[in-house]
């Protein structure tokens, strides 16, 4: 039985944590001195030993990834922070940057030092205006106070941070498309190899890391590997932000150690499902991960256990749906999203999502044909693993899994031209949740 914890979110309730004064008062920027006392490569091994895994979705061990960065090439190394949080259901980085931007900056400084990089690019989702304002203030304050710029606090370490607002494309969360976009080109994924670690931004060695990943780094440096490993599971240690949304009483970001179960998180932090509703299906890590059912509610939320259950932990964006909600409608909604966000570069993703979306329209308009289910399945097979990047794979995950788990609903729809009784296209979850039990809005604070 896990308990909610407070590591990354420790300052969420401090009203002025977003200012330098508030951050310093609550123990901020303490890890710098510890970090600068060590050799950069020691920091990399520390992160490796701590078992920090990428929080952007793939869960690749961060320390190992950092180890790929060539050193002493004579070329500059860049750190790119992927703050293009676009995965449906995911909103952890937004709050992190809104409420505690200095925590991220501290992570950037330590990570840059570990990577021997003097320049970090913060690639921020274009719609994140409020986090952007907070970050701009924080960066300005940090420069002022000497935490950024040349010779940070007399240590001889130089770190510059460039904040870049993205232009609004889901695909730019894919790291190579992000790099193209950052360079001012069309955001479309690049061929690999060469990998960004060898040739990333402007052809230079580049590390691309998620916001939450980087925010973990100062805590590891400050408190040590053992402390970090005391949270979470053996293979997935550390704290994790879970973004819970959907038909629960209190949606939001909740910090739990890795390995907490969905039931715990929903019951304890979200105060359960909305009245009288049973959990029917949910995404463990955003819409790009295969759906799980209510039967999986006790699966520990860590990379291994979720994979064993047939899905992926992804960004830990838990979208919870009850027995009153149509899975077909949800899948159509996601498919429309992927159709809209497909970059158009490769055939299967571009044409496949275009086709899938029209089939879903037909199904829900009562014009489905019995052969459409096999067609859906086959189109998904033709996309999965054959598209250029993971967007195509993600697009078919909800379709494939919903077809496998809830084929009866599809069949009912085709047979009768309407959804089964008691199941609606849109439940009133959004209305029921609005303004209810949520933290105070930050706008204008």
């Amino acid at each position, binding site marked *: 039985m896990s308990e909610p914890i407070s590591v990354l979110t420790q300052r969420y309730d401090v009203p002025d944590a977003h200012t330098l004064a508030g951050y310093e008062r609550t123990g901020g920027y303490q890890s710098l001195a510890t970090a600068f006392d060590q050799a950069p490569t020691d920091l990399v091994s520390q992160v490796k030993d701590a078992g920090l895994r990428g929080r952007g979705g793939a869960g690749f061990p961060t320390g190992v990834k950092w180890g790929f960065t060539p050193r002493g090439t004579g070329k500059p190394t860049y750190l790119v922070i992927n703050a293009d949080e676009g995965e449906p259901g995911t909103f952890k980085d937004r709050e992190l940057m809104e409420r505690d931007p200095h925590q991220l900056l501290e992570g950037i400084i330590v990570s840059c030092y570990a990577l021997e990089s003097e320049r970090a690019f913060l690639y921020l989702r274009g719609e994140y205006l409020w986090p952007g304002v907070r970050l701009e203030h924080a960066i300005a304050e940090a420069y002022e106070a000497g935490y950024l710029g040349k010779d940070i606090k007399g240590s001889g370490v130089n770190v510059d941070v460039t904040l870049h607002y993205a232009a609004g494309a889901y695909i730019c969360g894919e790291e190579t498309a992000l790099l193209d976009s950052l360079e001012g080109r069309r955001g479309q994924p690049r061929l690999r190899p060469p990998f960004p670690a060898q040739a990333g931004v402007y052809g230079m060695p580049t590390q691309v890391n998620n916001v939450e990943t980087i925010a973990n780094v100062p805590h590891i440096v400050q408190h040590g590997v053992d402390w970090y490993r005391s949270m979470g599971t053996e293979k997935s240690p550390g704290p994790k932000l879970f973004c819970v949304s959907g038909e629960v009483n209190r949606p939001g970001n909740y910090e739990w150690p890795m390995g907490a179960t969905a039931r715990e998180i929903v019951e304890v932090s979200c105060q359960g499902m909305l009245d009288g509703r049973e959990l029917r299906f949910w995404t463990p890590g955003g819409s790009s991960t295969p759906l799980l059912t209510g039967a999986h509610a006790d699966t520990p939320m860590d990379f291994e256990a979720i994979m064993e259950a047939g899905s992926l932990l992804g960004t830990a964006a838990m979208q919870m749906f009850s027995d009153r909600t149509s899975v077909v409608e949800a899948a159509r909604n996601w498919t429309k999203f992927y159709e809209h*966000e497909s*970059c158009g570069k490769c055939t299967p993703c*571009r044409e*496949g999502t275009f*086709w899938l979306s029209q089939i879903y329209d037909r199904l829900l308009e009562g014009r489905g044909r019995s052969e459409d289910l096999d067609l859906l399945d086959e189109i998904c097979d033709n996309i999965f693993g054959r598209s250029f990047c993971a967007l195509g794979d993600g697009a078919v995950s909800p379709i494939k899994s919903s077809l496998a788990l809830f084929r009866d609903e599809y069949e009912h729809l085709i047979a009768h031209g309407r959804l089964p009784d008691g199941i609606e296209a849109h439940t009133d979850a959004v209305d029921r949740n609005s303004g209810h039990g949520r933290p105070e809005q930050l706008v204008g604070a």
Partner: protein
Amino acid sequence: MSDDQITVTIDGTEVQVPEGTLVIRAAERLGITIPRFCDHPLLEPVAACRQCIVEIEGMRKPMTSCSTKATDGMVVKTHLTSDMAAVAQRGQLEFLLINHPLDCPQCDKGGECPLQDQALAHGPPDSRFIDQKRRYEKPIPISPQILLDRERCVLCARCTRFSQEISGDPFIELFERGALEQVAVYEDEPYHSYFSGNVIQICPVGALTSTSYRFKSRPFDLRSTGGVCNQCSAGCNLRVDTRRGGIERQLAADNMAVNEMWNCDKGRFGFPWVSHPERLQQPQARGSLLALEPVSWHGALTTAAEGLQAALDAGGGDAVGVLTGGRLTDEDAYAVSRFARDAVGTDNVDFRLWPRTDDEREVLAAVAGAPGPTYEDVEHADVVVVAGLDPEEEVPILHLRLRKAWRKHGQRIVVVGPTLGTMSEIAWRWVRTDAGDEGRVLTALATGATTGELQDEVAAALGGDGEGAATSVVVLAGERLSRSPGALPSAAMLAQRRDAAFAWVPRRNGARGALDAGLLPGLLPGGRPQSQAGPVADAWDHVPTAPGRDARGILEAAAAGEIKALYLVGVDPVRDFEDPRLARAALEAADTVIVQDLMRTETTAYADVLLPAAAPQERVGSFTTWEGRRQPFPQALPPQRLQQQDWDITRQLARALGADLGWETASDVRAEAAPLMDRRASVAERLAALESEPLPLATAPVPPLEEGELEAVVADLLLAERSTLLAGADDLLATARTPSAVMAPADAERAGVGHGDTVEVRGPGGAVTLPLAVRPHVVEGSVVLPGNALEAPVGTLADPDDPTGRLRVTVAAAPADELEESA
């Protein structure tokens, strides 16, 4: 690319390929064609269409063979042996077809469409797609020459990659995303590129089609013949598609040694002149009313021979002048060369009508007939020195090679001269010189007596032991260099001193062949001086002993009445000679003017006898590239009417004069010419042999300019409305660059004129009015004039009595009345 060979197993067969080879290329070696759309051997892989998916053992996912490099021991299964690959490929094809309009009957690509072929070979018999396709407006013109149909597009990005990677004119780009992704042009910038036609040829569907071939024919109804382009000295290989005695289109043919798989728009679309009404259709001669009348070939040749005979009787061989132009084949050039010496007995022959000083003969003699650096040598060179040449405007495919070398291995391209031309993107250093002063700077680079940091740096890069010194250097000297005193010899000496390969790069396709055939006074085929005729003496009855007159000399002598008969083969002196007044005077004064040409020109009006010649597509022959590569070509279609091949006309004219040159076919001419025109000794060896008698290098600096004066640099444009060989190619000409005078910002400021103004360029002999472009890539004190695109030839600006041949002009805002006229 490494030479290490690795072994890959594809469909159970082992194949050895160099390391770094892509799987799709390795499969091609075995004759296994993996279906593909976006892959193109000369473009960077993009892996967008996903059609070439194969199964690779040990890989979790299916892989795209166009982007996966083969590794040693790799085991690949294509669609032929792997169900997984076959299923995946079928799936991608189905995807590509769902949004394709399937309007094959209306589409120009129908019958030669990779998508059609693959749908037929691997595709499903019927579509499972019953929904709505995406819809766009049917074709939108992205340039006057190219139509884009976005519904048919499979978004393979071949065209956009071509324009970015190969031609460097990225005016087309992919816009939007998802299923709405589309190729488009920028709002105010149509796709104006000299190489735009290539995107039509590489488009794997009918999304890009040409306006000139629109709905003209189907591939099965076309007869395809190989050809060699006649538009410049690049020597691009062509595919000429004809139907019912007319050319329907021309495509680039593959020749990796020359044009790779590309050609320029001029070569692709510049063929309508062949069936143009201005073509000379039948022989004509002056009749009783002194007007040109159609006559029989026999009559025309007899009249011509009588005129020549009369001149010979009056003043011997010296009373006849022979001028040729830049369009002749090697056979023609040799035939005329021998005709002049053997049948007429004169050395008054010249093919060089361009303005020039008189110091180029030694260099040209060294170049003639010798194998020079090839395209591949240029591509692999570390440093290339370009002087007096703007490759994109003059020899476009050479520009693509230079660009490829710059892009692939960072070739350092040094431009020497008063203008950077269109080389600003790829040039490494621009050694600025005043117009006319190239010679002294080239000499300085050769001897190391450089001034200034830039020149030092370039000199260091050109050779020696210093850091960054090149291991291989090529010097490309253009036709324009002839205008500057001592420049061509200096360029040759630079090559000699720096152990570099030297190439003389003329603009016109027949120039190199004419040089090799000895179509200039004092030189015999193969660059032999008259004193060392060698095998020429055995083949010919008469070998002249003293050099005859050059082009200017011939025209002056004709104007003075010393030359009575002129034989003009494929040349239009009124338009092409630097001094059109002299040309007109000469043509008026000569008793007999025999014009042998393709089209009606300003010169044909002066003709006493007109002999219509067959177009290159209507005959056999061979053209020599600037490299010295001879490329024979077959006949693609019969002559329009009564035209004959030039060498044959010349042969018959000789016979009418009573001389039998002994040929019956073009092969006879070639067999006789080849050993005489080719020489084994390389350019370098022959230049080295010249060391004993030093080259006439430039020494004197350019005389200072008067206040407000500018030195005129005459640079020709690729597409000029007045080119006879672009007659009828209206769509192509609509893409031409606006001919304008180009000058440096400081000069423009001094003259009080600005970019886009209409200016009057006035020389001692006259003035022209044209738009002005202000660009930093012209040195101060010079103005670049578009020679072939001006209303009147540049020569009309010059003082006809100025012996220096230098042209100094003033530039001022055009007077208001002229503006009104032009408006």
